[in-house]
């Protein structure tokens, strides 16, 4: 066990955990940030996506010991009022079905738009193809990313 000081959503938070604990479980079990979801635990579905220094990162396979002083942003910290263009587009297009995958979808898309604010449909697909939505909301996910990009 070791004490980790983590920069999460602009705050310094502490957790007493073992070095190999995935960031996902530190966020969920120790920091009470449950917006980041556990889907597969093996970097296949993207439900656990957070930003580490701006890069989309699958927190289920990212050990806490690797975080260091990096800035971690989770869905709870994406915007203060839930009004990031993607969050607004997700509501406008009414993307979610069960909703379980959507935090990961939004975080994946947010990283894409940060690096490429005007992606083509193809670029959106290539990126978003890495995230699974078991409910099959893929059409609306694609549309919402496009809509958000038009508002940036």
């Amino acid at each position, binding site marked *: 066990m070791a004490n980790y000081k983590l920069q999460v959503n602009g705050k310094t938070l502490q957790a007493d955990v073992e070095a190999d604990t995935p960031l996902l479980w530190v966020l969920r079990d120790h920091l009470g940030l449950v917006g980041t979801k556990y*889907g597969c635990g093996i970097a296949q579905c993207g439900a656990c996506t957070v930003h580490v220094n701006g890069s989309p990162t699958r927190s289920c396979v990212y050990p806490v010991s690797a975080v260091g002083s990096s800035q971690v942003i989770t*869905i709870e910290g*994406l915007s203060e009022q839930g009004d990031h263009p993607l969050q607004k587009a997700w509501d406008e297009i*009414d993307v979610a*079905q069960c909703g379980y995958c959507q935090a990961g979808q939004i975080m994946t898309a947010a990283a894409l738009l940060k690096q490429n604010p005007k992606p083509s449909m193809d670029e959106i697909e290539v990126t978003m193809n890495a*995230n*699974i939505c078991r409910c099959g909301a*893929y*059409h609306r996910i694609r549309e919402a990313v496009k809509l958000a990009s038009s508002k940036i």
Partner: protein
Amino acid sequence: MKSTTTNSRRDFLKMTAITGGGLVLGFNWFSAEANAPVKFSSIGAGDVGFNSYLSISTEGTITILSPNPELGQNIITSFPMVVAEELEADWKKVKVLQANLDNKFDRQLTGGSGAVPHSWKLLRNAGATAKFMLIEAAAKIWSVPASECTAANSFVIHSRSGKKLSYGELAEAASKIPVPSTVKLKDRKDFKLIGKSVRNVENLKIVTGKPLFGLDFYREGMVYAMIQRPEQFGMKLKSFDGSIAKAMPGIIDVVSFKNNVAVVGKSTWQVLKARKLLKIEYEKEFDLESTEDHDKLFMNLMDNGQATVRRKDGDVDAAFKSAAKVIKGEYQCPFISHSPMEPMNFFAHVRPDGVELVGPTQTPARARAEVSQLLKIPEDKITLQLTRLGGGFGRRLKNDFATEAAELSSIIKAPVKLIWTKEDDMTGGTYRPACRYRFEAALDSSGNLTGYKLRGVGINSGNPTREHNFPSGAVDNLLIDSVEHKSAITTGAWRAPITNFLAFAEQAFLDEVALAAGKDPVQFRLDLLAKAKKSPVGDIRYDISRMEGVIKMAAEKSGWGKKKDVSQGFSVYFSHASYVAQVAEVIMRNGLPVVKKIYAVSDCGQVVSMNGASHQVMGGIVDGLGHAMYSKLSFRDGAADQNNYNNYRLIRMKEVPEIETHFVDNGIDPTGLGEPALPPTGGAVANAIFKATGKRMRNQPFIEEDVFKTVS
């Protein structure tokens, strides 16, 4: 428009015990007969156990309780929409709450596409009753006849005098009005909300990561647990040594019950790691089956199995003997897992004075009954709080995770959150059963279908046929029977049970028969339906006109038979009381068939929320296509070969075709939509692939068929 609303004295007395302001009406959303709205004297209706209610506070906030488990079918939005429509409520002032389990809900479950159909009239009566009382209250205040007052947008208006009062202002006075014995419902042409696109009321919580789901539930002092179950179906626990696991950091206990060894600890990760260190010995209880055995078994049972006759019309033997042409086709599907995104989980706290359960289940009442039976604790001592479900697809109809959590909590005497990993879920059973079908058709010399035989063989499938579905009723001589094999591999309902595969097999076979008869597949189906209409054979349980309706509209919308650059495939299916026809369009790219577009025409009666309905159809099609194309679970010595998304393939964004949805607007009461769009998809796609390649898809997943292996 009729409805009765006599209240039992007992209920009324119970409610007057509470004080407060506003109008509160309690309802039994799910009663089988006409509803009986019951007036409360306070907003605290929920506190006295009337969890299904509609309340209007003096500030004008309208609160509607949604009693069904929410798993993405968006019932939490469509239920209140129906109430708000009749109430003439300002939708912006409507607040929706998820109800906890209540004894008064006799149909508090999600499954079988039945929620909206079941409650349609009751919900409308609820809204209309409240509106009636608000109008009466206003009329009394203004001393005008109620018939001169109207309601709109959360106001009652007397247009002759220009007077206007808000629902909030009227709520208190309305609560003094007697509950009417009959109310008039709106004409559907006056609907303002129903049939429109209304967004999911939980969107904001979903996109900001609020704790909505079972796995997000946290209770001070709770412990985390995982269970090691036998990896092979057919094995049982012999002995275990948990000493190494127990010595790991954060581990509180290792305990065993039934075939389970549970590791209990302070965090998910510590439990996950320690569980790998358990030393467990299992012993054989039943046969350890493999997919290879199943393939042989299917062939053997198909010819020699003990068949149960499901339906028999006319004389099939004679029909086949005198046939000009006989067509045979066989189709097979593997087991598949439900694998909802959110893995199974449940919270349980078994205390001396009662049990608290929290979590995602499609059948909360059943969960409580099972826990009650297991722990010998009366049901009224057990509470169940429903969370949002991260998908269900039928998996959460079974409550093994809830009973496990309760049993574990009773052993360790602590509040516990039991978590299944994705691997636990995928290898843990209750799969869609593997089935094989053999179809035979007899044609006379003019290409008429004179005989039809179907034998279904299933592994733990129950009846793998739906003997009264089309084309039953349209064929003079017909025999449908089935053979079942009992296995240790557990199965359960999977979205659109049985028909999720049967529909593909049947619709592909009808395509084969149409071709052999030299007829267009759409016309062939219409001819059969015309025959069923003119001279029905035996029992017909589907509505011929509704089926014809979706077939014709799908042909028209898709430009059936008129397109040169795509290969089209047709399919139509009746399931769970609704009708869906689909046309799939396939093109060849690099020598491989690619599904470009699917048209879907649904007749589900009145659409409640247009976007909600179209999401269900699109999701159903993506689900149907994905599982037909890619997914399978195979077994070796009773153990699943696939255990997570790296080796169990689910459809992804790049693989989804364009989807165009249409709805038949016929004014029939809603007949449900959570499942009916899924069954037709596999058949439409398989028939389009045949058109494009000349190859018939015989087995799911299609991706293992030869056409997907030959790259030019």
